[in-house]
């Protein structure tokens, strides 16, 4: 009996599930060219009706609510803001010192994401959702592929396009020499009709220093009157069209949708009405 148990242990011990195929660890400097910085810019996003309704209801003053001032982005969004310096470290088990996965840390609001590569399962669907969710991954040849579930409801863009807590994100991390490209495939049937794919890149920067990101909440009522949650009622968003008029785009095209992602839509846009162009002081994120 003892011998059988020992033999089982013998075959269990030498497995090496989490060893990397390439070395992703290090400091990575972002090359992010920000998109979707204007209210009403939902271009290229396969939003469904519910997603569009939520996006249109969002008011930029919501960012000044106390609970939102220090609210982190989930990592798939945090990696895309302009101060998304990235650090990747190998994570070892505290007791066995065997690799269990990779840890990502981003500068803005300092979110961290642990990617388990040791074969553990995802928790129950009823487990708590977190800003960075729960991620498990594997190597496909030299590409790290991981899936994130258990994400809190968050933004898909920083101008109020929503992402539901049912969303899952599959992420592909590929190192090409000193270039790191990350492809996000976001699946959110609650708000989108198709997976939403977007990419970002970083350059290896061994001397990069990620500074602390202190954040302090203002008391309720300091910026926005206490008890008020700024929002637009359906059909009452009076700044929604300003992005379209600023850039001379048909309003319908700025509201996203799967059809707008493909080349054929260029022809269709030529048949659409474009409002006279105006330059406005409309809301635009600065970073």
């Amino acid at each position: 009996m003892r011998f059988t148990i020992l033999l089982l242990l013998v075959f269990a011990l030498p497995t090496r599930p989490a060893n990397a195929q390439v070395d992703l660890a290090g400091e990575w400097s972002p090359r992010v060219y920000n998109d979707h910085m204007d209210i009403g810019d939902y271009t290229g996003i396969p939003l469904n009706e519910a997603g569009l309704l939520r996006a249109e209801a969002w008011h930029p003053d919501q960012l000044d609510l106390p609970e939102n001032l220090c609210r982190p982005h989930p990592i798939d969004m945090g990696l895309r803001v302009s101060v998304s310096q990235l650090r990747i470290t190998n994570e070892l088990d505290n007791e066995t010192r065997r690799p269990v996965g990779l840890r990502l840390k981003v500068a803005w609001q300092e979110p961290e994401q642990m990617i388990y590569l040791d074969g553990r399962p995802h928790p129950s669907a009823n487990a708590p959702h977190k800003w960075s969710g729960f991620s498990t991954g594997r190597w496909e040849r030299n590409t790290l592929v991981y899936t994130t579930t258990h994400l809190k409801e968050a933004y898909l863009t920083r101008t109020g396009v929503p992402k539901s807590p049912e969303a899952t994100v599959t992420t592909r991390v590929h190192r090409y020499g000193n270039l790191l490209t990350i492809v996000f495939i976001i699946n959110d049937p609650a708000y989108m009709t198709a997976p939403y794919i977007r990419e970002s890149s970083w350059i290896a920067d061994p001397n990069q220093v990620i500074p602390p990101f202190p954040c302090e909440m203002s008391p309720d009522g300091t910026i926005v009157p206490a008890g008020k949650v700024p929002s637009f009622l359906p059909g009452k968003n009076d700044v929604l069209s300003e992005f379209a008029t600023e850039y001379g785009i048909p309003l319908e095209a700025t509201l996203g949708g799967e059809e707008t992602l493909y080349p054929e839509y260029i022809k269709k846009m030529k048949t659409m009405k474009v409002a006279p162009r105006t330059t406005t002081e409309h809301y635009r994120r600065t970073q």
Partner: protein
Amino acid sequence: MEPHRIVLLVAALSLPLSAPVVAQGPAAPRGGASGTARALAPYDVTGYWVSEVTEKWRFRMLVPDKGDYVMVPLNPEGRKVANAWDPARDQASGEACRSYGAAALLQVPGRLHISWQDDSTLRMDTDSGTQTRLFRFGGPPSPNEAPSWQGLSVATWGGSEPRDRRDGFGGPVQDPTGRLVVAPQQQKEADYLKVVTSRMRPGYLQKNGVPYSGDALVEEYFDTFSDPYSHNTWLVVTTVVTDPRYLIEPLIMHAHFKKTPDASGWDPTPCRANEAR
């Protein structure tokens, strides 16, 4: 069984499964020394693909305004050239293909057809601008070829560099003659297509005349995968444009394409200076 025998047994059984073996000498290339680029391909990049534009939408699906180069790290000389853009002049002077050059062709919404022209040349045709790119494996291009819109592209299968110590597999070791050799455990399979393009005619990074010069160098990395949600097959291309004449640092761009079953939707267009595609 006595304890020391059990320990020996454990050690003996563990070795073949966990311990990297010392260097075995240089391994032959996969597919054999005579393997062609086509035979060595780690994945199939051929077929028909259609752009899916999810980012930089207003820069790609429309012709942006003159002077709108907010996402391009232009230097002062580059801004000066961009601010002088005149599409009517380009069209009239036979320069309408400037925005369909190799550096930015994949940013133009449209369809691709990729095929093997021969065992060492991948061919990419685009319906937008009706352009053809040739990715040649096996050596640098002839220095005598004249610059063209699509330039000269050298292709390699990348990612097969040996693992090093940081990957947990140990590094190359010396054989008895002092040569550095790589053990089989340290070898990786190639897993992406890398294309380096030079000798291009000056062109545009965006439809609105944001320039790159004839000195620009374009590096492209191609990855394919199937997404677990729609089960579509995707091609993602990361493009790095280095141009000391007009850029303060390399510009990194991305484009992704969905595989289509056939040529449906193929819609060839001529080069047009004032159209999005």
